[in-house]
């Protein structure tokens, strides 16, 4: 599914160069559930942005479904993001004054075929909301939803184009632990039941334990990469 080879990313701030990634290589198979942990500033988000085609590496190669996407032009990257990748952010990033349903419909406005027909948009968005158990909140605006519900709407939005890769950067960062576990359950289910490849960044060990595999970042490098033998049951605290 994913293969990265010697991925490096440098940022130029003033005169000096920040090496956010210093040569990361790894492979992620389809339907794997990978969690990424590491101290702040270790390059996790930078790595995920490259995986999500939001950014391009300074050097190195990134193969997504066997295709080298590290050199694609911006419009092509947009298409890959729309069709193949679903994004979930720490801050939910829902549009205010817009219903949950319409928020979920958003990626369907930018498909390769243009804007998806309204009736079909609605139908597909409802199905995505169903997957996160929020059909009864379809008409609610974000400010009428709890944090956990908002994040579930965001997950539904990531799912609506039926991508094969789901990326989440600290999806539980703004949630209490109960809701965090609820959200992680959803990711786990999507990976095991639907065969989605899921990559989640987190700071918390117990959240990381939801993954079938946990990768540890430090100073722009992978310092450990090991499978979690058995899924740790949800532990509060």
């Amino acid at each position, binding site marked *: 599914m994913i293969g990265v080879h010697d991925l490096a990313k440098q940022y130029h701030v003033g005169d000096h160069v920040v090496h956010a990634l210093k040569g990361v290589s790894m492979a992620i198979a389809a339907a794997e559930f990978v969690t990424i942990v590491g101290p702040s500033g270790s390059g996790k988000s930078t790595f995920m942005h490259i995986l999500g085609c939001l950014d391009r590496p300074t050097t190195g190669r990134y193969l997504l479904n066997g295709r080298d996407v590290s050199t694609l032009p911006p419009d092509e990257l947009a298409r890959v993001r729309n069709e193949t990748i679903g*994004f979930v*952010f720490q801050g939910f990033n829902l549009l205010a004054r817009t219903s949950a349903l319409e928020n979920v419909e958003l990626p369907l406005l930018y*498909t390769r075929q243009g804007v998806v027909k309204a009736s079909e948009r609605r139908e597909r968005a409802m199905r995505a909301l169903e997957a996160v158990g929020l059909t009864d909140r379809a008409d609610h605006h974000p400010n009428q939803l709890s944090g956990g519900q908002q994040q579930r709407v965001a997950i539904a939005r990531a799912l609506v184009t039926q991508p094969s890769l789901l990326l989440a950067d600290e999806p539980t960062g703004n949630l209490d632990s109960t809701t965090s576990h609820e959200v992680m359950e959803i990711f786990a289910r999507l990976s095991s039941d639907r065969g989605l490849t899921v990559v989640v960044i987190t700071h918390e060990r117990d959240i990381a334990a939801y993954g079938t595999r946990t990768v540890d970042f430090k100073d722009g490098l992978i310092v450990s990469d090991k499978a979690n033998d058995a899924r740790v049951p949800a532990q509060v605290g």
Partner: protein
Amino acid sequence: MKNFLRHPVVDTAIKALSRNRLQTVLTMLGIAVGVATVLAMMAVGAGAQRSIEQQVRAAGLNQITIRAGNWRPKVTDSDEAVAHQGDARESLRHPLDRLNDDVLPITFHPEDDPMEKHDHPTARQRLGDLEAGLGSAATMTFDDAEALRQLPGVQYVAGGIHENVRVHLDAKRWFTRMHGTDVMMPSIKRAWAFSSGRFFTAREQERGAQVVVLGQVVADKLFGPGATPVGRDVALWNQQFEVIGVVTSATWVVQPAAGDDQFDAVYMPYTTTQRLLNLSKLNDITVTAESSGDISRLSREITKLLRVRHGIGDNEADDFTLITQATKALTTGGLPPSVARAVASNVAELEKVTLEQLAMTMERASRTMTWLLAAVAAVSLLVGGIGIMNITLLSVTERTREIGLRMAVGARGKDVMRQFLFEAVVISAAGGLAGIVVGMIASIGIARLLQWATVVSPWSVALAFGIATAVGVFFGWYPARRASKLDPIVALRRD
């Protein structure tokens, strides 16, 4: 419409614009003022154009009259000689003289009862003599008129026969001019308006129907002011004629007056005149040029053509006379007719000068007004445009995270650009529509207040709307482009 409003781009635009409602409305207001001014400007300009045009036509500046006979070398300004010259008589005499004697009722005229006279074997002879004495015989025909119609640059052609007649309504009678003319006449006399009824038709002309159009003065004298003569019968030459229309002046420059040649007159098909008076000649042919500036060239062409048609040798004089507004203007300006003619025929492009003088006076006034309005329009459109740029930039800044999100879920640069351009155009187009309404009202107001004709054409409305939209696109371009160039990661991080 409902579907259009539901379109996501439109829906997003409406939501975004209602977020900064006051700013949006104020910006629209700026555009509205600009567009209203553009519209008023064009209305004033077009109004001036039309009134210039009308006056050019009223003055007959694009008109050439070709009269049978050549009175150039022999005519003296004795009363007897000019009495039968119709229009020419008018033009050759001082306007004050004209006023003085034409309003007096004329008690006798040799052609008073032409039916009787023309039946007399010597009658036509006498007419012929008179014309022969003036230089030529009655040589102008309908075929000449048809030939002139073929000349390039010719707009309309109308043959005419002119007589003095007495029009009878029961016991009342009025002595006036009779013009046997062509259906084309109302097109030539652009400054005509029908206060009731209509002009005669091509069919009536073909049949030589006994129908008559009264000048306003004649209608007033016979039927009284405000009466409706249409459908009534009047008598000329002891023949019954049905009144089919009353013609009056369409412009304030020319007012119908007793003794004038246009509205103290009656009109009928020249075929009717020819039939009743047993004539085949035409007294004159009136030609209008498509362009007023073309009069000199056209005059030369007409002279050449008619000389060939009439078989006039190189050294012989013309058997016809060309009269243009230039010759008329010079004589009414006080020059002796012979000098006027000499000047008019020797100074090339003289008509242009006369035309330009008239047009220039009118244009100078309208140009001042147009420039003033154009300046106001330009400034308010500029201010409105900057307003649009400002509000769109504000919107881009406020919605940076939204832009980042849309890009993250697959929006391309051009999708983002389209969204913001559309929002800018919505503001300017809405302002434009409001401006069109205000501009139309303003145009009517200007017309009422300043007594200045204004014309709001559909074309100018479309143009005003187009300008508004263009302002939106132009000033929305930079902010929209900036939004489309945002880096999604940077945009998503913004708070």
